[in-house]
Every structure is written in C-alpha cells, then in structure tokens.
C-alpha cells in the first residue's frame, strides 16, 4: 500500500507526517525572531566542492543550440552560503533538499533529504551549541502546540526517554575516545600510529586505508554505541585531520572547532567555526580532486567562483547543518525515514 493510500485509509496517521512541516515552520519562526535572512539555494549546480568520497548525482542540461552542460544535484548548500556571506548578507539560514548518490536506500538513508543550515556572524561553535539547544526546544514547543499535547520536558524515542531541558551533555572527542576506546588522542596523530593501535585491537587494516577511515572504524565500533542517550549530546573538538577547513582550537592545537549533535545515538547536526583562508581551501580542493582521480571517481567541475568569493573575503562566522528528516524521525518516534515522508524513496524506487 502506498503512503497516500495508507493515509486515505487511516487519516489519524497524518500527525506523524506533519512533524516535519512543523519543525520547518518552527525553524523559520526561530530565525525570523533573530533577524536572519532566508537564502534560497540552487539545487542544480554547475560545480561542486571537491570531496574524495562524494558520490554525486549528475545530469546533462541540453540547450537549444545543441550544447550540453553537466549539472549536479547539490550534496549541501554550503558553497552558496559562503558566496552570499561574501556578498554581505550577514546572518542567514537555508532549508533545502540535498542529495547523495548512495548505494543503498535504508531506514536512515534516502538519496534526497531536507537539510537546514544557518550561519552566525562573529560567532563560534560554542554559540552554535547554545542556539541549537534553544532551536530544538522551540521546535518541541511548537509541535506540542500544534498537536495539542501538554508540553513535556522529555520525548520518547524507540521506548527510551530523552530529556530536552538545557543544558545538554557537552563532551570532547578526546574524552570519549579515552573513556570508551581507551585511546589517547595524542597517541594516534600519524597514520602509522593509528594503524598500529587499530591492528592491535583486531581491526582489518589495509594499505590504502587513510587516517580518517581508521579513526571512523574505531569510533563507530567502540565509541558511538556507548554515547549516553538520556539527553542530547554535543560532541566537540574533533581531531584536526578530520576537519581541515575548520578553525584550529585556541586551547589545543591537535583539535579543531567542530561540533556534532547526537540525539538518541544518532548524528543530527554538525557545525564549525569556519576557516576563511582561500589558499587553504584551494589547496584542499586540489588535493581532493587528485584523490578522486586515484579512487576512480567521476570528475567534478571545480568551483572557482567559491575560491573567488573567499578571496574577496567572508566575515568570521560559525555555521551549522541540521538534518530535518532525522530530527523529524525522533520527534515522530519513527524508526524509518519512510515513516515521515509522504513519498519516500523506498516507495518511489521499489
């Protein structure tokens, strides 16, 4: 039975599907009150940021004179946020469909999903955490209002209680590494060292595995499943190698100012104090472009316009991206992304 038939037969199910709509409305109210502009981003792009593992969705535009141009469905709106920051828009947010050329469509994955990003001038990732806490609480208030339920301090997801009252857990990556994987961040600073640690732990490591992959392997197996879930959690201060375009922490040169929000053990949002150095950005893009060639990935047209925008200069800024579908799943207590979308990918491409 298709979702529209299901809803026709059982209209009480609509409540679950309205959650996403309410979250978006609450976000617009939240940013409107704070004087943010809303950016409408293109979703069909002529160039993308270079990223070695990105599986792009591309198509060809054909013009009446017969010329053809490659067009990409965007994996994030970030490049447009940065260009509009260079233009001088100031604080702004964007709510957009973004795309991944994934191999699988699963309970947590869809090739298209809704992403919200906001950019806060003269701010840092610490502010992002505070704003995120307020935003999610306002979303919750709005949901209670629209669904005519009493405002509660906690929500239930998958049978477990999550307390939303501030302040949420804030833990550094090096703390959780030590606690759950018994690793000191300073002891795994090179590929050789992390390889040795992972091999001793019994992981299968191959020659072409890079530092990021090995780190993620340990993190996904030993850290993530053990993160506390009674409250939302901000994990922050990520190893520098994982976020080359993020500002290095002032207190610890091994880490950068990146934060990820986990709710119910799931990654919901991530944010950075943005690096504004165009030379570093260009160097990194070229490195990623070369890595794509080595990995046999499709060539992506280089976004020179972004480098030019950074050259012209963007103000000090912190930016956060939040996955609306995942958050809607949590508020709707839905196990599957297809339970909160009227036209889920599983149904369209089954």
């Amino acid at each position, binding site marked *: 039975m298709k979702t529209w038939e299901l809803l026709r037969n059982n209209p009480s199910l609509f409540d679950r599907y309205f959650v996403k709509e309410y979250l978006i409305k609450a976000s617009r109210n939240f940013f409107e009150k704070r004087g943010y502009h809303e950016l409408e981003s293109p979703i069909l792009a002529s160039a993308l940021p270079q990223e070695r593992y990105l599986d792009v969705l591309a198509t060809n535009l054909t013009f009446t004179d017969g010329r053809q141009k490659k067009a990409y469905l965007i994996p994030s709106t970030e490049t447009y946020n940065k260009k509009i920051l260079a233009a001088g828009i100031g604080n702004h947010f964007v709510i957009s469909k973004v795309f991944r050329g994934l*191999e699988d469509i699963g309970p947590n*994955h869809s090739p298209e999903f809704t992403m919200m990003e906001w950019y806060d001038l003269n701010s840092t990732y610490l502010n992002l955490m505070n704003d995120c806490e307020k935003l999610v609480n306002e979303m919750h208030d709005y949901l209670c209002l629209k669904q005519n339920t009493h405002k509660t301090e906690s929500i239930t997801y998958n049978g477990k209680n999550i307390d939303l009252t501030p302040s949420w857990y804030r833990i550094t990556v090096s703390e959780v590494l030590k606690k759950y994987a018994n690793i000191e961040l300073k002891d795994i600073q090179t590929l050789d060292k992390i390889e040795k640690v992972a091999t001793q732990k019994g992981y*299968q490591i*191959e020659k072409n595995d890079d530092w990021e992959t090995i780190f993620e392997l340990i993190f*996904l197996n030993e850290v993530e499943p053990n993160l506390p879930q009674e409250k939302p959690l901000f994990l922050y201060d990520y190893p520098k190698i*994982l976020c080359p375009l993020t500002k290095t922490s002032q207190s610890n040169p091994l880490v950068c100012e990146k934060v990820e929000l986990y709710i119910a053990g799931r990654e919901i949002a991530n944010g950075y104090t943005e690096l504004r150095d165009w030379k570093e950005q260009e160097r990194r893009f070229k490195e990623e472009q070369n890595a794509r060639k080595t990995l046999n990935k499709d060539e992506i047209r280089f976004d020179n316009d972004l480098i030019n925008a950074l050259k012209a200069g963007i103000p000090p800024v912190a930016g956060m991206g939040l996955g609306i579908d995942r958050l809607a799943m949590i508020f709707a207590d839905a196990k599957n992304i297809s339970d909160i979308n009227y036209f889920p990918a599983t149904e369209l491409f089954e």
Partner: protein
Amino acid sequence: MHYLLRSDIIVSLILKIKNMALTGTLTKGMVINFNNEPYIVIEKEFYAPAKGASFQRTKLKSIKFGKVVSHTFKSFEKVEELDVETKTMQFLYSDDSDAYFMDAVTFDQIAVPLDQIPNRTDFLHIDGKYILLIYEGRAISVQLPLKMTMRVIETGDGVKGNTATNATKEAILESGVKVQVPLFIKNGDKISINTESGTYYSKEN
C-alpha cells in the same frame, strides 16, 4: 566504451574464487566467519559519514551461541563467506519452541527453533514452501519472502458510513495471522502482505 575493468570489480572476482566477500555485498542471511566463529548476518545498513569512506553497520548473530553483536565494517573489508546449503522445504506445523519442515522428495523432517526465524512465524502456512539455510547439517534460518500472498479466510463487511476516519477492518488469513485490510477486501480474496512490517500491501488479482 570502458575497456578498463574497475579495480573493485576485479577484487570482487578474485574474492569469489577464494570464497571471500566484500562487506559491501553482505546480505541478510549470509553466514560469515567473524572472530573465528560462524555468524549469520541479520541486519545490514550502509553508512557514509559526511567525510571519509563508507561503512556497513551490521548486526550478526552467533550460530553457536545465539548472541547478537553489532559490528561496523569498512565497505571494502574482506570477510570469509561460509558454505551454507539452501533447501526448499515444506512447512508442516509448529509448537511452542520449533517449526517443523519436510523435504518433499526424501520426506526428511527438520526442526528449526522459532527464534531463528526472522520476521514472523505466524506467516508460515501449512504446505507453504520456504527456503531453509543449513549450516553443518543444522537449519539456521528460514527465509521469508518480503512479500507473501495469502488468502483471506474470514473478514467482516466493515462498518458502513464510517469510511472517513477508520477505513480498515480485521481479516484472518490462511496462516491464522490477523491483519488490518481495506474495506473492499472480501472472504476468499488473495492479498499480499509485507512480512517485515506485518501489514497489508495490496490485493492480488
């Protein structure tokens, strides 16, 4: 035309010969060697972090001890696939602990503990044929198709005039399972059921 084979395809071909599999190709029901013990894959989900290579999150069940573990593999990790025999057998009956199946040719019978049948045992119907996975002589799993067609043996007329709010009614299917169906379904209709969610999917002609 591409004249060069992609390197990952070549790797897959070589692995096939050595009975090794890439973790990206793991599927539910596959039996692998994990920490030198046989495990059956009961769940697999693709995961791609924002930056970095992709991973496969899995839930594996130990065939010897029954315990379930979670493990995340890199997508191109190699695992040894263990030889599992598949046999199509006829379902006879079940009791509190086991379901009994028969080989329609040799009449050999085999018992499968109910907790090893993923999804729902109440979708097994007598004389229905199912694929059993056999490892070292023991049945370790029964594969239910995602969609199964079954006949409705009993359903009411549905309450007329109440279609706007609750346009479904209960139906009992030939396996004895009860599901909610739309009002137009009648006794004797064949319907297809999603065995994972246990819900009505569509009416068959």
